[in-house]
């Protein structure tokens, strides 16, 4: 069964002009957000993006942008309470 989360929320952006089609983003994205088309990477399904930041960090040509963050309610609440950036404190299996 496929999971689907809220639509139209991800902050992912691509500057196609800078993309050289190196393919790195396809390699690191855990949710198949990109495909290669005519020598450039394109975003095929932005709603699958979890804002992990892997593509941005590994794009050698700075063609991608996202506001990375943890999709974790407990971390966000803690961030609100302590006035800090949300970050997760767990060390479990696939937590955060």
């Amino acid at each position, binding site marked *: 069964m496929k*999971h689907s989360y809220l*639509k139209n929320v991800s902050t992912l952006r691509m500057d196609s002009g800078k993309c050289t089609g190196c393919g790195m983003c396809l390699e690191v994205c855990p949710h198949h957000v990109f495909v290669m088309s005519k020598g450039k990477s394109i975003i095929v399904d932005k709603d699958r993006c979890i804002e992990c930041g*892997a593509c941005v960090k590994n794009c050698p040509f700075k063609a991608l942008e996202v*506001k990375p963050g943890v999709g*974790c309610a407990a971390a966000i609440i803690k961030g609100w309470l302590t006035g800090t950036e*949300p970050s997760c404190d767990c*060390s*479990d299996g*696939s*937590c955060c």
Partner: protein
Amino acid sequence: MLDIVLNREIKINPTSSQLTTQDILGAWKARWGINRMNYKVEPGLYRLGNPDPNAPVLVTANYKMTFDALRKELTNFDAWILVLDTKGVNVWCAAGKGTFGTTELLNRLAVVQLDNVVSHKTLILPQLGASGVCAHDIQKFSGFKVVYGPVRAKDIKEFIQSGMKATDEMRTVTFSAYDRLVLTPIELVSTFRISLMIFGVLFLLNLIGIGPFGAVDFYAYVGAVIIGSVLTPVLLPWIPGRAFAWKGWFLGFIWVIVNLLMGWPSSEYSVLKALGYLLILPPVSAYLAMNFTGSSTYTSFSGVLKEMKIAIPAMIISIGLGAILILVNSFI
């Protein structure tokens, strides 16, 4: 010319693909939250099997459960395992925090003097570490080329044997019912403290004569907790809707309705009290389900934030109203 020869000893720890009973017990304990924060292995270089200088180098985190999950897949295999100091946190979380990151990897490469141990220049990193590591910077500063391997340790052997080619399936994060089930004990354990507090308050209310709260209240609440922290996570993709809080609320609502049909409001449970529970219990499940976003593999920060901005005020209002109804009911 001044020639400084650093003859530091290269420290290599032996390890194997065999998990001992102790390892298995330790993993079980960690799942239930016992000694979890301290479940670590020493960072450094490990030798698994009988690796020669051409053997592959696998990079991982120093959370013992992560390290064990990797080595148990490497039966009859020779490899080097480079364990980064992620403070006992798994790869995915540590990458998010940056401890499984570019700096730590560069440092660790230098500390273990990897270029004196292996003759090649390739590192295999778990794909989920990519959000912490910048592959082109590693190459630039250390000369080692980073190859992102499969998401799951069980595919690592196949990945290496097929010449470091990951299939689409190896690259995709899944989140099966079993994956979700093994995460629920910790969700349940983390509700104990707050649940005890609630029981304490109800007990005090009983003592001062507002109440009485008895067995039915207890099982109604426990039911809502189990629904939010176990049932919703396990049934996740089959529950209609997208937001986690909604999914939890929905099942919690069904739980209360079922209870109402099964005998509430009896003489002891007035309409007012039943209504109160209809307002209180579904948000309890919703809150716990919402907390599962942290364990899920497909939620984004922006998404969770959006969901919370609606869900949290709604929960507070609903629980507040419900509490008023129940208190009013106690006085009449």
